[in-house]
C-alpha cells in the first residue's frame, strides 16, 4: 500500500486521563496512521491496596472496603465475600435472606449493565442513550436507597444474612419497575440494534475466539459472546440460583455486537429472575446471629460468583486464631479482559480500540484493586 512512500510509526499515549478509558487505564499505542500496530496497557493508577487493607480489618469491617472494589456492582462484591466467609466458617443463611440477596444482586446486575450501556454508546459517539441508561438506573438506585440508604456502596449483605429487611413499599415499587423495564429495553433496541452506524461500528470488530478468551481467563458476557455457554450461576450454582428459571444468552461471532446483544439479553433475564424471586420469597428471619468479631476456623477457600463483568472470585485464608483474614485476594473479571485487549485490538483502528474497550466493559478498580 505504501510502496515507495516512507512512513513512520508513532507512539500515542492514551490515558491515564482519557475520556474513553473508563477511569484511569493507560494505553501506549504504536500507531501507523490510524491503525493500531501494538497496544500495551499500563495499569495501577487506581491501585488502592484493598487487599492489604482487608488483611488488617475484621471480617465485618472488610465489607465496606470490598464495596469499593467494584462500585458498579457493590452488591455482588458483598455477596461474593460473604459467601466465601460463610463457606469458610460454615454459617447457614436464612431463606428470606437468600432471596433478598438474589433480588439485590440481580437488580445490581441490571444497574451495572445500564452503566455499561450508557458508556458504550457514549464511547461510540451517541450521547443520548447514555442519559437514557442512567435514567432507568436511577429507579433501581431509589429501590436501594429505600432499603439501605445508600446509592452506590451499600454495605447491605452481611455475613450470615442481610443487614435489614426491606421496607413495606419495596415490593410494589420493584414490581412497578419490572413492569416498565422491558419496554425501556425495547426502546434501546429500537434506538441502536438496527441502526446501520451502530452495526458497522460493532460488527466484526474486536473478534475474540473462544479459545483465546478461555486461555486468557475471560469470563462473563464477554466469554459467552464468543460462544462458550458458561455461567457460574448455572454451572457452579451458589446461593439459590438453582431454583430459578433463566436462560443464558450466547453469541456466535465474539465481536462487539454480540457482546452488546448478550448484555442486553442479560438485563431481561435478570429482570425475570427478580420477578421469580419476589414471588417465591418466604417470610422469616433475615440474619443468622454471627458475633461481631467472629474467628473462622483455620482454612482457605476460593469462592466465585457470576458478576456482571465476569467471574468475581474471593480467596480467603484464615489463620484460625484471628478475627482478621490472613490473606484476602479479590479476582475481578476486568483484570483478565484488559489483559486480552492487546491481542484483539491489534491491526484495528484507534476507534476500534475504543469500541472494544467499551464492549468489554472494563472497569479499572477491578483491575487495579
Amino acid at each position, binding site marked *: 500500500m505504501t510502496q515507495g512512500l516512507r512512513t513512520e510509526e*508513532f507512539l*500515542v499515549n492514551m490515558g491515564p486521563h*482519557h*475520556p*474513553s478509558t473508563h477511569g484511569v487505564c493507560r494505553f501506549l499505542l504504536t500507531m501507523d496512521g*490510524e491503525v493500531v500496530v501494538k497496544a500495551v496497557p499500563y495499569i495501577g493508577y487506581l491501585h488502592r491496596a484493598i487487599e492489604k487493607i482487608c488483611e488488617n480489618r475484621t471480617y465485618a469491617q472488610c465489607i465496606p472496603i470490598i464495596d469499593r472494589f467494584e462500585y458498579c456492582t457493590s452488591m455482588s462484591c458483598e455477596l461474593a465475600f460473604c459467601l466465601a466467609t460463610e463457606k469458610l466458617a460454615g454459617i447457614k443463611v436464612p431463606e428470606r435472606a437468600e432471596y433478598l440477596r438474589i433480588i439485590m444482586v440481580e437488580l445490581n446486575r441490571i444497574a451495572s449493565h445500564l452503566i455499561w450501556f450508557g458508556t458504550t*454508546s*457514549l*464511547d*461510540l*459517539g*451517541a*450521547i*443520548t442513550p447514555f*442519559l*437514557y441508561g442512567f*435514567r432507568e438506573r436511577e429507579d433501581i438506585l431509589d429501590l436501594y436507597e429505600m432499603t439501605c440508604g445508600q446509592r452506590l456502596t451499600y454495605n447491605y449483605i452481611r455475613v450470615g444474612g442481610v443487614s435489614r429487611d426491606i421496607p413495606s413499599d419495596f415490593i410494589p415499587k420493584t414490581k412497578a419497575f419490572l413492569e416498565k423495564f422491558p419496554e425501556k429495553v425495547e426502546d434501546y433496541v429500537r*434506538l*441502536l440494534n438496527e*441502526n446501520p*452506524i*451502530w452495526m*458497522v*461500528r460493532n460488527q466484526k470488530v474486536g473478534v475474540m475466539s473462544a479459545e483465546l478468551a478461555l486461555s486468557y481467563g475471560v469470563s462473563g458476557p464477554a466469554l459467552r459472546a464468543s460462544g462458550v455457554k458458561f455461567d457460574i450461576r448455572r454451572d457452579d450454582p451458589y446461593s439459590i440460583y438453582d431454583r430459578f428459571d433463566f436462560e443464558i444468552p450466547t453469541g456466535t461471532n465474539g465481536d462487539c455486537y454480540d457482546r452488546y446483544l448478550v448484555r442486553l439479553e442479560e438485563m431481561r433475564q435478570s429482570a425475570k429472575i427478580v420477578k421469580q424471586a419476589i414471588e417465591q420469597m418466604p417470610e422469616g428471619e433475615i440474619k443468622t446471629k454471627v458475633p461481631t468479631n467472629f474467628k473462622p476456623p483455620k482454612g482457605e477457600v476460593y469462592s466465585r460468583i457470576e458478576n456482571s463483568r465476569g467471574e468475581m472470585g474471593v480467596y480467603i485464608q484464615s489463620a484460625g486464631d484471628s478475627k482478621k483474614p490472613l490473606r484476602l485476594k479479590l479476582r475481578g473479571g476486568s483484570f483478565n479482559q484488559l489483559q486480552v485487549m492487546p491481542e484483539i485490538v491489534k491491526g484495528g*483502528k*484507534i*476507534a*476500534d480500540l*475504543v469500541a472494544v474497550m467499551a464492549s468489554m466493559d472494563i472497569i479499572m478498580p477491578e483491575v487495579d484493586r
Partner: protein
Amino acid sequence: MELAGVFKYLYELLVSTGLPQVWIDLISLVAAAFVVFGFLAVVALFLVWWERKVSAHIQQRFGPMRTGWHGWLQTIADMVKLLQKEDITPATADRPVFFWAPVIALTAAFAAYVVMPFGKGLIVSDLNIGILFMVAITTFTIISLLMAGWGSNNKYSLLGGMRSAAQVVSYEVPMVVSILAVVLFAGSMSMVDIVESQAKIYQWYIFRLPFGPIAFIIYIISGTAETNRTPFDLPEAEQELVAGFNVEYSGMKFAMFFFAEFINLFTISAIGATLFLGGWQGPFLPSWVWFMGKSLFLVFVLMWFRWTYPRLRVDQLMEFSWKFLLPVSFANLIVAGFMKYSEYFNW
C-alpha cells in the same frame, strides 16, 4: 415588513449627503459587513443556546436554566468567561500557524455570507458565480483545521486535523455534484436567480421529482460531514482524540473555533434552504422570516442527527462517501440533465 426597504432608505440618506460615489460605496460596504457580522454573532449565540436546549429536551432534561430566563444568557456568559481565560500557547507549538488558525476559521465562516440572499433584495453582493464562491470559501475552514492540528504539535490534534482534511475533501465532491444538479436546472450560479426560479412551492427543488429529494439528502449528509457534526464528528471525537484539532486551544482562540463551528452550521443550513427549500420565497410573511425559518428548521434537523446517531469510523466514513454518495450523486446529475432536456418535466 421587508427589511430591504429600510436598507434602501438608509442608502438614499447616504446618497443625499452628496459625498463622492467612492465614499458612498465604501461606507455602505463597511456598514453591510458590520450588519452581517452582528447578525451572525447573534445567530451563533442563539444556536449554541438552542443546541443545548434541543439536546437537553431530547435527553429528557432541562438544559441551562439558571442564567437568565431558561438560560438565555448562558452563551453570553460562556463567551465573557472565555474572554477572561488565560490564553495558552504550548511551548512546542508552531506559533504563527497556531495563532492564525482560529482567525482563518472565523474569517472563512463569515466570508460565505457575502453572497447569501437573506431576503428579497437583501444580499451584500449578488455575484454571478455566487454558489461557486460559497462552496470555495467554506472549504477554507479545512485549512484552518489542518493548521490547528499541525500548529498545536500534539498527536491528537494532528490526527484530528488529518481526519478533518480527508473527510472534507471526500465529502466536498458529492456535495458539489448535488448542488450542480440544482445549478443545471436553475441555469445560473447566482444565488438570487436560483431563489427566483423557485417562486411557487411546487417549484422548490426538493419537490422536483425524482432528482430533487435525492440531491437534497446527499447535500444534507455531506453538509453534516462538512460541519464535523455527529455522525461525522471524527475530527473532534471526544472518546478517541480527546478534543481533536482544538485540544490545545484555550480562551478566546477556542471561542473563535466554537463560533466558526456554529456559523458553519448555519451556513450549511442556509445554503440548503436557499437551494432546495425556495430560500426567502413564501406567502404572507416577510421574505427574511421565511429564510430564517427554513434555515433554522434545517439547523434543527442537523441537531437532531447529532443527538441521535453514533459516530462512524474513519474508513467507513471514506467508504460511504466514495463508494456510495459519489456514484449516487453522479447518477442523480445525469437524471437531472435528462429532465432539463425534456420539456415535460421543466415546470
